[in-house]
């Protein structure tokens, strides 16, 4: 047995397992040290969890776009983070208009609905344009070509929006009905976080039903399974790909407004970090797998908000919260190393990874 193991392990494998083992040891050591020190109460942990859940459901919504596009085109739509940014940034002007005219205060529900609508349609428009101009001509190109195109498109879009709307941070207006908190027994939830979680859950449920239950959803799944065969079955592949981009764009636009409501500001560069994290979430759940993306997003959000205090505080690291992005990226790299198929990505295996 030892002999066989020795034959199968290469030096690089050993190094990688050492890295992984070291990480795991650090995490366990840090967590136990934190828990023993007992600096955080149950309320703290609960707050972290709720925040993580809210952030995670936003990641999950963005991750849907990545994972669906990857499933159907086998490419990372690097510019999806700009699809996410464009919607809420444009909708900001609607929100600001409602705010200054007092409409936001009188009719908060209708205004929010309008903001969502604008954001989702702008994001969808950008996603569709992206597909038409940048990706469609390159559908049969070598793999690196569309990726480089996507990177280029991403920066082009970022700086286009910077040119259009300016380079400053824009403060999103405060929606009064979302301020304050709800109390459950001993625990308190900030209202807007609860709303973000519920809205994201509803959207995800709707999207999932659409993909699983409708004819179009079925066709999209067929195309991502096998393009040629589904073309032979009479499915219009171009249309299905556009539909995928539309759905991804809508999800990203909605996620963008939720993000803006949560962090109260928009900026032309706001898409970059959530974009990469959503991609991490998609990989985490198994790229190409829609429930996986949702699960991965929520998991990532939780780890990111609980992680710094749990893993790093115990290790005596100052200001652990600064390293939360590093935790997310480390997790991305670890997943890519040890389980490129993700949590739920059993079926895809080597063929696509």
């Amino acid at each position, binding site marked *: 047995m030892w002999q066989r193991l020795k034959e199968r392990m290469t030096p*690089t494998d050993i190094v990688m397992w050492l890295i992984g083992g070291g990480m795991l040891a650090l995490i366990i050591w840090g967590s136990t040290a934190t828990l023993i020190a007992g600096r955080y109460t149950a309320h703290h942990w609960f707050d972290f969890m709720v925040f993580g859940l809210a952030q995670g459901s936003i990641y999950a919504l963005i991750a849907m776009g990545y994972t669906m596009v990857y499933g159907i085109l086998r490419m990372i739509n690097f510019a999806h983070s700009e699809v996410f940014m464009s919607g809420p940034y444009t909708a900001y002007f609607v929100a600001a208009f409602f705010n200054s005219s007092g409409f936001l205060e009188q009719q908060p529900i209708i205004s929010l609905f309008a903001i969502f609508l604008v954001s989702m349609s702008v994001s969808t428009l950008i996603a569709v344009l992206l597909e038409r101009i940048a990706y469609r001509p390159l559908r049969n190109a070598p*793999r690196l*070509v569309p990726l480089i195109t996507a990177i280029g498109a991403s920066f082009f879009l970022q*700086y286009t929006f910077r*040119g259009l709307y300016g380079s400053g941070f824009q403060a999103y207006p405060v929606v009064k009905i979302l301020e304050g908190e709800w109390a459950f027994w001993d625990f308190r939830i900030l209202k807007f976080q609860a709303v973000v979680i519920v809205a994201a859950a509803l959207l995800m449920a709707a999207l999932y039903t659409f993909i699983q239950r409708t004819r179009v959803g079925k066709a999209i799944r067929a195309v991502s399974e096998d393009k040629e065969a589904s073309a032979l079955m009479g499915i219009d592949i171009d249309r299905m790909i556009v539909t995928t981009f539309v759905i991804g764009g809508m999800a990203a636009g909605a996620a963008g407004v939720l993000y803006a409501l949560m962090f109260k500001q928009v900026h032309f560069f706001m898409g970059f970090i959530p974009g990469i994290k959503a*991609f991490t979430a998609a990989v985490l759940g198994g790229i190409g797998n829609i429930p996986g993306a949702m699960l991965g997003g929520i998991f990532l959000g939780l780890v990111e908000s609980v992680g710094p205090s749990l893993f790093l505080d115990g290790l005596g690291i100052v*200001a652990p919260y600064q390293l939360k992005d590093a935790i997310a990226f480390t997790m991305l790299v670890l997943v*890519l190393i040890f389980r490129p198929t993700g949590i739920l990505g059993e079926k895809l295996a080597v063929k696509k990874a």
Partner: protein
Amino acid sequence: MSTRPLPDYWTTRLQDYKTTGLHDYATARLLDHATMKHSIWQDGIKIGLIGGGIGVLLSLIGMVEAFSQRHIISNVISMGHTLLLVIVLLVGYMAAKRASQTQPLRVLANGLISGLMVGGSLALLVMVGNLVRLRAIFINASPVLYKLLTFDYGIGSGIFLLLCAGAFSGLLSGLFYLSPALARRVLLTSLSSVVMAGVLQDLLRPTFALWGPLAIINEWLFAANGLTIEGAVSLFILMALIIYFWAKRGSAVKAGFRGLPPTKQRALRITGLLLLIIVLLILPQVLGLFLSEVLTIVGLYVLLGLGLNIVVGYAGLLDLGYVAFFAIGAYTIALLTSPELGFFGLSFWSALPFAIIVGVIFGVLLGIPVLKMRGDYLAIATLGFGEIIRILVLSDFLRPWLGGAQGVGKIPKAAIGSMEFAGPQQIYYLILAGCFLVGFISWRLRDSRLGRAWMAVREDEDVAQAMGINLVAAKLLAFATGAAFSALSGAIFASKLGSVYPHSFNVMISINILCLIIVGGMGSIPGVLVGAIALVGLPELLREFADYRLLVYGAALVAMMLFRPAGLWPEAVHRRELQEEESVGTETESLLGPEPGKQEGV
């Protein structure tokens, strides 16, 4: 409908199908298709509207206004107007090209209409802008922009003028398309050299001014802002004459060179190279402080580009976290030399080897985890690494060692004896030496066993492994070499600035480098140079360009991938491959050709 003659493309297509003996049915379908898709006005309107959209976008993001500060020809045309003019001309040309050259009227109509469409879109923008305060949303939709778009003639006559200008330019494009090939070449080159002279006036003016006898050119050519009219005209004529005679006699000159005996050819080449080296050596003395600074920045990017060229261009490993090694090189130097931290206090030269060694170590360390990844996963993982390094450097956690957000200062300059590499004019030589070294290494590596192994890995990993290439060694060596070059660049960067900050090492640097490699041509050493000059040097010279730098980079990446994936200066192997593919293509066609014909005969 079918009486209308077909455009070029379809006629050749039809010819193809006829020679391959396709059935009449297919021919008929093709005819239908061709005539349906190309109604007379549709080409012009559709292409024109696309161009109009681009024009409006460029106006709204502020490019037109920012560029109009600089005049190409003094008081005649500004760079902003040139930008719009180029769009109209391009669009007009594209529209004109949809029709065959044998139908001049159709060509001219297409050009005219598309030009009118671009002018119309801009006019619409001006009209809407006058009715609604667009500025509440689009910060660049300012009255200045409208004034520029209407040529300062007020809204009524301005819009009329705009439409006329659009239509006229479109018409010119149509005429251009109809003119003979030689005339097109002469016109295009001399016009673009006039534009370039105007764009690069800040570079050319001080250069001419430095040399006494050449200063007269300055007076003739340049006004306070832009070219003088007579200067522009004479430059145009001069360039036109040069291009014309080169087109007539150029092949004779080339043949003459080839006719020389090999020893003489070699001698000529070496003289050329020596001349180039001499020019490179005296360049900072000639160009002055500001331009030397630009040169050093370009040089640093060349160093970085050559390193990434090995990873991406040779070995085909798309590394988006390349800036990490640049940061590691810079921070190693800072750590070892800066008295501010006071750990070691080494001199630059004794710290440099350590910087490179640390770079290599990190190259291998970060390379090991990603060995099994391919393509896009690799790209994202390396992007993650780059960000992790930046976040760690920025964090308070490592602040006692790396200085946190404030960075590290007081890094000593490099010095040989009493000569200190302090200003850009001295640092230039350091960078030049680095570029020569790194360029030489990559040039030698390219044709070595290792270089071939890398290219094999790039083309197909599995096949490469089957041929006995050690994938692990090849990939790790690629990462290590790239990291070493990058660390060298980082070390020079740290000593050049005298301080390092985490903010100098964000992901944009990686994207810049990737961009210059791709624009220059992946895997090509002169390509890196071309890319660095075009993407780093030019924007440094054009201050108003700074805000739009990444926008143009992004557009350049997309455009290169769509239209010219091999780059501006493709690598020889690539070029050969492309040519071979073409010849193979025609061969198979000719092989297939007679086959159906025979069937028909039977």
